[in-house]
């Protein structure tokens, strides 16, 4: 093999390491995108009203934009494995485009799902007002549903499918379509695993700290040695939260 060219800086160990890292971690810019989204959410938390109050603006572009930022912050870290698979299974010249197309499908489905859920929540508000229920009981119900969902076969199967690769065509519109489809399929599976936790976070509070906690819990589920067993174990603290919320709600009722 010929001697390397005499441009020491470009081939210095530091540059080699950086280039090697970028080659081996093509998902680096999506992590950066998520970090920026978290910064925006944090800034919103201190300067703007809580996210769920944007329910009235959901049919506005601003509302959709807020939801998209939330999805990018919370959900992109959970999609790093399929993002990497998308890059490594694409032609080199289009690997970043392939990841972007994946994210189009992934973030798109999540954004639509969250918006649909918030619209449904808006529609139910008048019904909920007619059935008075202390916040504590509401939280207890969603926590109990979340705990039960952790144990269902549907959740278990969806969790296993989270990192499942799909074949991708190499080039052309078929390649673009396959990457978007991969993102859509992955997002559908993700929504299936996480929807009760997302609802729980809204009922608890739409604060950025709550969102961070939900992302952390879901990341632990996905990246541990036995994801399905971890999911089952997580039912316990959720059930405990349901119990504690019930107790607090009862105490609140008795003392009011």
């Amino acid at each position, binding site marked *: *093999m010929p001697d390397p060219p005499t441009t020491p800086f470009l081939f210095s160990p530091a540059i*080699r390491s950086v280039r*090697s890292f970028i080659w081996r971690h093509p998902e680096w810019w999506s992590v950066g995108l998520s970090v920026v989204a978290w910064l925006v959410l944090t800034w919103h938390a201190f300067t703007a009203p809580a996210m769920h109050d944007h329910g009235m603006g959901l049919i506005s572009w601003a509302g959709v934009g807020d939801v998209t930022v939330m999805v990018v912050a919370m959900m992109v870290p959970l999609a790093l494995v399929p993002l990497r698979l998308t890059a490594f299974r694409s*032609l*080199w010249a289009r690997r970043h485009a392939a990841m972007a197309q994946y994210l189009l499908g992934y973030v798109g489905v999540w954004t639509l799902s969250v918006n649909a859920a918030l619209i449904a929540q808006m529609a139910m508000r008048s019904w909920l007002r007619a059935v008075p229920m202390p916040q504590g009981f509401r939280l207890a119900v969603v926590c109990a549903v979340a705990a039960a969902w952790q144990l269902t076969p549907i959740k278990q199967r969806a969790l*296993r499918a989270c990192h499942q*690769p799909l*074949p991708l065509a*190499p080039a052309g519109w078929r390649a673009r379509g396959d990457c978007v489809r991969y993102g859509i399929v992955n997002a559908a599976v993700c929504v299936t695993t996480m929807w009760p936790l997302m609802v729980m976070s809204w009922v608890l509070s739409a604060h950025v700290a709550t969102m961070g906690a939900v992302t952390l819990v879901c990341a632990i589920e996905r990246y541990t040695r036995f994801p399905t067993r971890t999911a089952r174990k997580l039912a316990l603290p959720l059930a405990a939260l349901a119990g504690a919320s019930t107790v607090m709600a009862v105490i609140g009722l008795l003392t009011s």
Partner: protein
Amino acid sequence: MPDDDSLKIRKDVWRLATWDPVLDWYARAVADMQTRPITDPTSWRYQAAVHDYVVGRDPIARAGEKLPSTAEQQKFWRQCQHGSWFFLPWHRWYLWYFERIVAATIVKLGGPTAWALPYWNYSDERNPDALKLPPAFRATTMPDGRPNSLLVAERAPACNLGQAVGDALDIDLRRCLTEDMFSVTVFGRGGGFGGPSTGFHHSPGTTGSLEATPHGSMHSAVGGDGWMSAFNTAALDPIFWLHHANIDRLWEVWRRRDPARHTNPTERDWLTMTFDFHDAAGAVVTPSIEQVVDMTAAPLRYTYEDMSDPLAGVPPRLRAPRPLPMEVSPMPEMVAATSRPLTLGTGTTTSALSIQAPTGPARLRSAAGAARTIYLNLENVTGAGAVGGYAVYLNAPPGASASQRADHLAGLLPTFGLAEASRPDNEHGGSGLQIALNVTDLVSRLEAQPGWDSNRLTVEFVYRGAPTDAATIQVGRVSLYYA
């Protein structure tokens, strides 16, 4: 059983007399272990379930029998490591504890101490009968007239008829023994000799080359539609343990072939990984891989009768590619892939790849004059049946005879583990097998031939079993990587 510190020698089963005491006592111990309940960790069925167990698909389940608790099953059953750098060390521990259980049983039955598990060297070119199942495993009775516990009906028909099991492709050692690296984890270059770096990995995925052939191909060749062809029943067949002893031996053969390059991983993640087993007394043990890298050292203290290099005189075909100056280690780059999944049956299926000029690391490597390695990847292989597996050819002339086609062989697609890898309830959601075939030499030869067209590299899958076999296989994608 008191600990015996002497170095045990695992012998070649074909160098033993049909009912050598090693085999006679093995058969007696197997029969005794088969009488123990499945809740006994030293029972035959418990040991088989450590590999894998599927409720409702246990061929010798008894109505109303009690299984170990769910917690115990989660901890000790369904533990076999496949598609992982833990494949070899986990099976080494698995065999060793099994050997100790058998040895303790033999002592209990009045037999000798220090019994060692034999191995089946089906690749031994000096033995014309090497590919046949050893006679002790197909005799109907033992020397004392009792039914032979080593005989299992659930095998490929050729096995118990004393005919050759599989063929030269199933036992070919050239591909695995010429791998330079124990573990490769980047996508597109396969798993190396021993398998890719993973966490706990029970379901198959990307395999190391030894796990593919001869391990996987011989599982299917012996099993046919029977026990050795499925994870959850393989260890019920007494030949399973001799087959894996040979695989374990080949690990050592590989290391000795080139001690400077053929080294085990040194990462802490590999060395400190622990697994749960039971020892000969049924007590729980949790050994680490660190203790298993030297089989002659305590606590293992065993060796093999013959660890000579079957490829002696044949240099390693390919060295692991050296990194470019700007690389820390070589990065594979995809240059071609199919656009649609392929459906395989029991005939021949052909597809084509159009090779794109590389634009990333492979281009830089080419510009720097670095050697190129080429891998044909068979991705997301799912389905059932097809126990014969497939031979994969590149640019085979249409209508070519078997000998003409041999020059175009890319490798095998073995189907051991296919059903397990395709199950939607497995760890990876049923994403199937991933096979990587090193086709560097082959593609280089094809490029040098007249009529080479990089826009049309044909890939042909030829089924190797009987036309009447059931086979529903889908290959999600075929791709080509330069590394």
